[in-house]
């Protein structure tokens, strides 16, 4: 698996992401600096978490306008698998690769904790190793993770089965009480129409180690490794 991780000024979870991908696939991904314009030759492109450009103006806005994002878009259009996590999700919505936006958390505070998400759809390349309804304990760490889209868009996402993860409790119950940031319909992750671009707020890459965070994030990376190696 040849994976690229994009690095912007202010990106800070690129190493966590590289560790997770390496653990699942056995190969170390390549870090690609934001000034690059060509991303051809990779099977997987990951836009990781952090504070690209300080999260100034709007999270993801400046990175979303950078040259490398044009390259990400090109590859996505050609069907290459693209994963955006946290700031990466924000960036992908800013570029229009995914619909909606991520607003400030409803509680107006940064939230860092372990939480649960429910897999709504078991499908390659992102969730092939998860079963539908499977609950995973993963980390969240964000200030703007409040997913918002108008009702029409939300209905379309639901109708097309594009909501991939929702915030839930440890038994998979989805309710207002488990909606930690105010997201519409508890949405934690969505895919594009074609199914090759996934954006999610939680950090599965911080749940790959029995000693720190547990290992319930690992199946996502194993899904990618399997789907892409196959």
């Amino acid at each position, binding site marked *: 698996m040849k994976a690229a991780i994009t690095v912007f000024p202010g990106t*800070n979870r690129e190493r966590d992401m590289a560790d997770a991908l390496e653990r699942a696939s056995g190969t170390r991904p390549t870090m690609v600096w934001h000034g690059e314009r060509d991303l051809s030759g990779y099977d997987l492109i990951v836009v990781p978490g952090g504070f690209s450009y300080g*999260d100034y103006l709007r999270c993801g806005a400046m990175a979303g306008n950078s040259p490398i994002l044009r390259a990400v878009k090109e590859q996505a259009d050609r069907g290459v698998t693209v994963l955006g996590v946290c700031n990466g999700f924000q960036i992908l919505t800013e570029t229009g690769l995914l619909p909606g936006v991520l607003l400030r958390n409803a509680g107006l505070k*940064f939230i*860092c904790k372990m939480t649960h998400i429910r897999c709504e759809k078991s499908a390659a390349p992102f969730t092939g190793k998860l079963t539908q309804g499977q609950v995973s304990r993963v980390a969240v*760490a964000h200030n703007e993770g409040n997913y918002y889209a108008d009702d029409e868009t939300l209905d379309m996402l639901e109708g097309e089965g594009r909501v991939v993860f929702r915030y839930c409790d440890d038994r998979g119950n989805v309710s207002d009480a488990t909606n930690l940031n105010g997201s519409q319909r508890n949405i934690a992750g969505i895919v594009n129409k074609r199914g090759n671009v996934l954006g999610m707020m939680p950090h599965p890459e911080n749940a*790959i180690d029995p*000693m*720190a965070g547990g290992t319930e994030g690992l199946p996502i990376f194993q899904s990618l490794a399997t789907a892409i190696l196959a």
Partner: protein
Amino acid sequence: MSLPQVDITPEIVAEHGLTSDEYKTVLDILGRAPNITELGIFSVMWSEHCSYKSSRVWLKTLPTEGPQVIQGPGENAGVVDIGDGDAAVFKIESHNHPSFIEPYQGAATGVGGIMRDVFTMGARPIANLNALRFGEPAHAKTRHLVSGVVAGIGGYGNCMGIPTVGGEVNFDKAYNGNILVNAMTVGLARTDKIFYSKASGIGNPVVYVGSKTGRDGIHGATMASAEFSEDSEEKRPTVQVGDPFTEKLLLEACLELMATDAIVSIQDMGAAGLTSSSVEMADKGGVGIELELDKVPMREEGMTPYELMLSESQERMLMVLKPGREAEAKAIFDKWELDFAVVGTVTDTGNLTLKWYGETAGEIPVAPLVDASPMYERPWEPTPSSPVVKSEDVASSLSAGAALKKLMASPDLCSRRWIWEQYDHLIGGETVQTPGAADSAIVRLPGKSKALAVTVDCTPRYCLADPITGGAQAVAEAWRNITATGAKPLAITNNMNFGNPERPRIMGQFVGAVKGMSAAAKTLDFPVVSGNVSLYNETNGEAILPTPVIGGVGLIEDAANSVGLGLTETGLILILIGE
């Protein structure tokens, strides 16, 4: 661009906080009257903050050595050997006053400052901690201050991508008008790649990197003097706005350059900016430094040498490079979109020489400036001993259950989850014991099985009742919190927060705490490798509780063996040990 001419009147001298004796020493050192820029430099260097003039005599009595100590107090941070060629680099620092005035930015820039101290030494920060003291929960300002400070600490640390893994919080009315925000950073370096601030190599370039210099933090009172009246009605803010994004770039750029061998020495521009960084670098190396101030990257128009030397703008560093390495260094800083400017050279004059478009804007011999910095043996009174309260003598009408509930709900003991959830404590994927999970946080070294145990501790009410015992207790608690997780305590850093040292009662608290801390650190073989002193924490003559905060660091060879607080299964046996 001519130099402003300012008459040095007794009022201006007083506004710069120099006593008449101190000013006489200035005249002796220079053999003439200083100009305004030179006066500003003396004032900054001899301030309590830089010179430790009230505390130095006592700090010298602390134990600072041990086989594990690579660098004790005196550098940007302390350095401790943790085996296999790895070193832990750490320090704690206060940002009390600014955090009271503007809680978010004050706390944020405090965190930024302490991280710079650590990565200046070549260490990548791996953990942040914070020790906070607020007024009573019911006080009108407390809520606002707590939420602003916590958001500010999180805002800076989260953006930098360094996990904030521990801390402590107390509430007491003594802090109503003077909160305490102490931030600690622990970093990781290789023992053979530690960077120091000692300048050397006559003719070597002196380089400025980071953000541009603005008029941040230049003291309002001084600015109001006639010659700076441009907009004197608008009092200069004494609070800086932090830019964690730029600092993250600065961190990466510095570490990238440090991986080469181009740097001779490096010093961050902390509170006293260009002044203290250049003076310290020159003094440590026994050399002179000439600065061409007009080359300093400036954020605003019309800045004067005085302002450039005194600015407290954040996210800046000063370095001495090996000759001919400027282009290579510049390429790295260009890549990270940071300012880079060669602003001077190392000289053999022993002087700090300031140039302004070719003209001399100031010239001060460095050694006398540093050596003559005032040191006071302030009079002090021992704290009268308070009667010991025996538990048998305290009548309680509460049942054990009710007492437990009351304790658990009290502001000083209730859950701190509300705070630590606002801090990214998981980034890096190495936080083996998270906040609340153990007596100290455990952060593993990337790619290794060993980990550091880190904690901050102090119980101010003990220190008020008996500073000696309280000072010792803080050290002992840090030691216990580390050992309780299975780690071996290595060394400490301390943040001495006290009231006005010119009052013998307060000075007595300081002296007592140092004595207690010293005794405990000696007994436990737990030396002090860095620290910070914050005095004059008073409002309207009401001092804060004496608060000598201890930051402790320990080592555990296998993080898998670390122990938390949680009762992990039923049927476990509880054992009480100790007296």
